[in-house]
C-alpha cells in the first residue's frame, strides 16, 4: 500500500495543528533552523521538530507499530527573572496538557506520551531580557501496514 502523506508527516502536522488550536496565544513553528531571537521574535513560542522513528513489527501480524519521537522547544520571557521562570513553567504545563495523552483523529495515529523536559533560564551575561527555554520530549504511536508507513 502506498499513499501521499507519510505517517511521520501526518503525526507532526497533527501535533502542530493541536498546539495552534489549543494554545492560541502562543506562536507555533515547525522545523525552524534559525535561532529564536528573544529580543525581537514574538514570545511565547514553541518550535516543533520530529526526532527518532522506531519500528516494531512484533506487536501485530502484518502491521508495524512505529514510535515517532518529537521535541518541542519553548521560549518565554518576562519582566523579572522569577516571572520568566514562571512563564516557562506555565508554557510547559500548557504544552503537556495540550498533547500528553491526546490521540489524533487521523487514522493510524495513536496517543502521545510525555517523555521529559529540560529547562534553562538564560544567564544575565547573555541576555539583558529575563528569558529562557525548555526542551520537552514526547513520543507518538503510529501504526501502518508493514512496509507502508503512509497515513493516506
Amino acid at each position, binding site marked *: 500500500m502506498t499513499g501521499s502523506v507519510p505517517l511521520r508527516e501526518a503525526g507532526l502536522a497533527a501535533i502542530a495543528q493541536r498546539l495552534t488550536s489549543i494554545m492560541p496565544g502562543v506562536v507555533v513553528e515547525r522545523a525552524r533552523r534559525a535561532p529564536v531571537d528573544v529580543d525581537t521574535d514574538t514570545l511565547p513560542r514553541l518550535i516543533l521538530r520530529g526526532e527518532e522513528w522506531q519500528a516494531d513489527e512484533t506487536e501485530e501480524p502484518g502491521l508495524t507499530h512505529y514510535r515517532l519521537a518529537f521535541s518541542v522547544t519553548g521560549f518565554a520571557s518576562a519582566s523579572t527573572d522569577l516571572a520568566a521562570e514562571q512563564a516557562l513553567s506555565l508554557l510547559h504545563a500548557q504544552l503537556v496538557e495540550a498533547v500528553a495523552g491526546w490521540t489524533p483523529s487521523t487514522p493510524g495515529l495513536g496517543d502521545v506520551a510525555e517523555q521529559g523536559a529540560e529547562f534553562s533560564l538564560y544567564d*544575565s551575561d547573555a541576555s539583558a531580557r529575563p528569558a529562557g527555554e525548555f526542551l520537552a520530549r514526547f513520543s507518538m504511536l503510529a501504526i501502518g501496514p508493514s512496509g507502508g508507513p503512509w497515513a493516506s
Partner: protein
Amino acid sequence: MTAFDAAMATLLADPNMGGDAEWQAAAGGAWQPVRVLLSTPAELVPGLGATSGRAIAVQATIRAADLTQPPRRGDLLRWAGSTYRVETVEPDPLGLTCRLGLARIS
C-alpha cells in the same frame, strides 16, 4: 589621576563613545549622573535543542571614581527612558573601572 584613569575618563567623556546615564544604589537614594560606555553584544545562547536562542546582553563600563560607593548587584542604571538592574560587576585589575552586566527591567 593615573594615566590609565585619565585615559578612561577621556573615553567616557568622548560624545562618540560615552553616554549620559543615571545610577542609583540598591539601597535607594538619589539618582546620580554618570558617564557610561555601552556595549550590546548579541550572541547565540547555548541551548538545549537543535533550535537555539539568540539574545542581546547589555553591558556598561563606568569609572569607579564616579560613584559614591562600589557598584553591586541590585543597583539601578537608567538612560534613554530605560532602566536596568545591575546583575554582575567586573572591576578591572587596577580598580579604575567596572563593567556592569545589566538586566532590563523597564
